[in-house]
């Protein structure tokens, strides 16, 4: 409640309007889930904000301490449900580190492929819903058209459309074939054309730029201080991408790709437009990574043979602890697991990027207008399933 005391209307002057306490959410069209934001409004201007989370808390971390290592993989799907592959990957890497094994070469390339596909799908949602937040409904449907193709592609190899449970400790669930990779390439070619379409309808729209440039400016210092990661951090001008800086999968070392950062093209560095534009450019990088990965993918096994045997009985890693972080579409997702030699970890913890990114909201909102507040929430691109876990 401190935030509410910080910004108060000057009541010593003879003219002031009464402030209004507005409850934005938890059921609200543009809080992207069950986020509740308590706003203090002076007319249309937000004077103070306090976000209230916890409406989607499902004890995901505690569940991890009560199921086996493998059984927990599907639960990670349901944290950031728009980027399930990436969540699977982070958990699998953690368990692999705990077991002190490494996934086979081919599976690592398959992982890169599916993770980058899922990143495009996740950014497409961010793009589409951001349009809706600002009142442009049509881009949403365009984004969903392409996302549908990605879901169909991933369904072919994993059997599921959204919650894949595909990347597992020791490799991936199924192998991929050349026909599937050709389909992915065809999708990438198609997507690059669609991407130009998106820019024509939304990115370069004058009203859109007016609505997002210079709004919700997140400075570099603030982004670092609050532990923001992913596109939110990069939009503030910090060139930090785990894929590039701490490659957690071998292919990221070999693949050439650029890390887009915000440049303050239409306004100030770190405004809503920058955050949006970083995501858009990342999608193009993703298709480039996918093309390179398909060109370089080696033959081999998709799953460690030793692991397959171990799957028949629950995994029991040696006592120890492991912490692995991955570059998710929303930032760094990290899992921390402590083993005491049992079937399940005695401590399981997830560091969710949306949670840290959301923490700046209370500081970004005061001083903006109600409509800008919606634009700021949308530009942070949070998934409440991950915030509350």
């Amino acid at each position, binding site marked *: 409640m401190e935030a509410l005391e910080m910004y108060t209307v000057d009541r010593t002057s003879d003219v002031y309007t009464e402030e*209004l306490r*507005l*409850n934005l959410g938890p059921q*609200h*069209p*543009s809080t992207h889930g069950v986020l509740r934001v308590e706003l203090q409004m002076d007319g*249309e201007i937000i004077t103070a904000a306090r976000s209230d989370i916890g409406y989607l808390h499902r004890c995901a971390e505690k569940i991890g301490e009560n199921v086996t290592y493998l059984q927990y993989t599907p639960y990670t799907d349901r944290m950031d449900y728009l980027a399930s592959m990436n969540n699977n990957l982070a958990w699998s890497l953690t368990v692999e580190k705990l077991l002190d094994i490494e996934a086979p070469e081919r599976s690592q390339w398959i992982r890169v492929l599916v993770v980058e596909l899922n990143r495009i799908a996740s950014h497409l949602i961010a793009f589409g819903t951001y*349009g*809706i*937040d*600002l*009142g*442009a*409904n*049509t881009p*949403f*449907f*365009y984004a969903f*058209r392409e996302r549908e193709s990605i879901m169909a592609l991933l369904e072919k190899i994993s059997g599921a459309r959204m919650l894949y449970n595909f990347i597992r400790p020791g490799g991936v669930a199924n192998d991929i074939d050349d026909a599937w990779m050709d389909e992915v390439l065809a999708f990438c070619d198609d997507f690059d054309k669609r991407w130009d379409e998106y820019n024509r*309808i*939304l990115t370069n*729209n004058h*009203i*859109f730029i*007016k*609505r997002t440039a210079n709004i919700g400016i997140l400075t570099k210092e603030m982004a670092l201080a609050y532990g923001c990661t992913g596109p939110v951090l990069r939009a503030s001008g910090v060139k930090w991408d785990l894929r590039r800086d701490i490659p957690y999968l071998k292919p990221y070392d070999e693949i050439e790709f650029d890390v887009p950062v915000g440049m303050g093209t239409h306004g100030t560095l770190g405004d809503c437009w920058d955050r949006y534009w970083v995501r858009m450019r990342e999608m193009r990088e993703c298709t480039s990574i996918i093309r390179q990965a398909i060109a370089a993918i080696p033959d081999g096994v998709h799953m460690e043979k030793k692991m397959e045997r171990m799957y028949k009985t629950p995994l029991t890693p040696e006592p120890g602890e492991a912490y692995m972080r991955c570059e998710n579409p929303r930032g760094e997702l990290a899992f921390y697991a402590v083993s005491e030699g049992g079937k399940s970890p005695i401590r399981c913890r997830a560091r969710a990027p949306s949670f840290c990114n959301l923490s700046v909201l209370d500081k970004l909102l005061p001083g903006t*207008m*109600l*409509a*800008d507040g*919606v634009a700021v929430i949308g530009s942070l691109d949070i998934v409440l399933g991950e915030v509350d876990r």
Partner: protein
Amino acid sequence: METLIGVFEQQLGLEGVWALSAAYSVCIGSLLGFITVYAMFAIWMERKVAAHMQVRMGPMETGAWHGWAQSIADAVKLLFKEDIIPSQSNKVMFWIAPAVVFCGVFAGFIVIPFALGLQIADLNLGIFFLISIASIEVIGVIMAGWASNSKYSLFGAIREAAQVVSYEIPTATALLVPILVVGSFRLDDFNLWQEANGWLIFHSPWMMLAGLVFFISSLAGCKRAPFDLPEAESELVSGFHTEYSGMRFSFFFLEEYASMFVASAVMATLWFGGWTIPFVDMSTWTDPDSFGLSDVAVTSIGIVVLLAKTFFFIFVQMWLRWTLPRLRVDQVMTLGYKYLVPWGFVALVMTAIFKYYGWGWFPN
């Protein structure tokens, strides 16, 4: 209207008051019927336009052919819905607000000339009447927002008040420009003038500017995107009609589409020739020498022509709605006061100069 009274008095033998009330009933009944049918069609059209812009099909099942009966099904559903009035609301105001909103727009319809002589009230001050009667709607919206006792509704109502009142200035300024050239407030005079001289939009560049100013302001007046701030669904849930449901909600919906029609019809009448066809003198069609059409046939052609033009502008409004993001409150005000009002006045002054010196792209 007068003709209708005459018909009732002479042919049916009704006396004074009775003929008058009979004529009123026929007019209001036919207008209500027209608005309902039109709104249903426009809602269906909106859904189709939106769907095809968004790579989908829209309603396809109801009524077998491209979901033509979807609006009827929706209307029936809304009629049978439970009538919910929030317990903490101001019930009387909550109850009459949709009626007030609808009345304002409904009254606007009575001066629109659908064809030669087909006009319920042939007022000398037709345009003046339109501007003033359209403002009543704001009162209804504010009543709805206030009576709902919801903060979101209140925000929507306040935005509506600020927006619509501001945009009445450019609307009225832009409307003055054709009035200046034609020299009349009577709507049918514009049709006759344009039948003789050509469409007013081609009168001068300033007339085009005035047409643009009017169209943008009318978007704001109809609360259509990108000016749909009063009901901005991503910010205010549903704005001033958040708490409304069932038939009361449908009145707000009806009002939106009806005001779109009025704005588009005024645009078509004042700038684009109304029910006239360019370079064609429709009054000669009744001559046995040319086509020998009956009066009814010529009137019907006039209606079709006006409706075609009107629906074109309605389509443009839908097109914009599904393309553009929404403006912010202060940007709406900036656009209104800093751009549209000066443009409107420039168009007015320049047209006055053109009129004085007899300039323009066709003689006047």
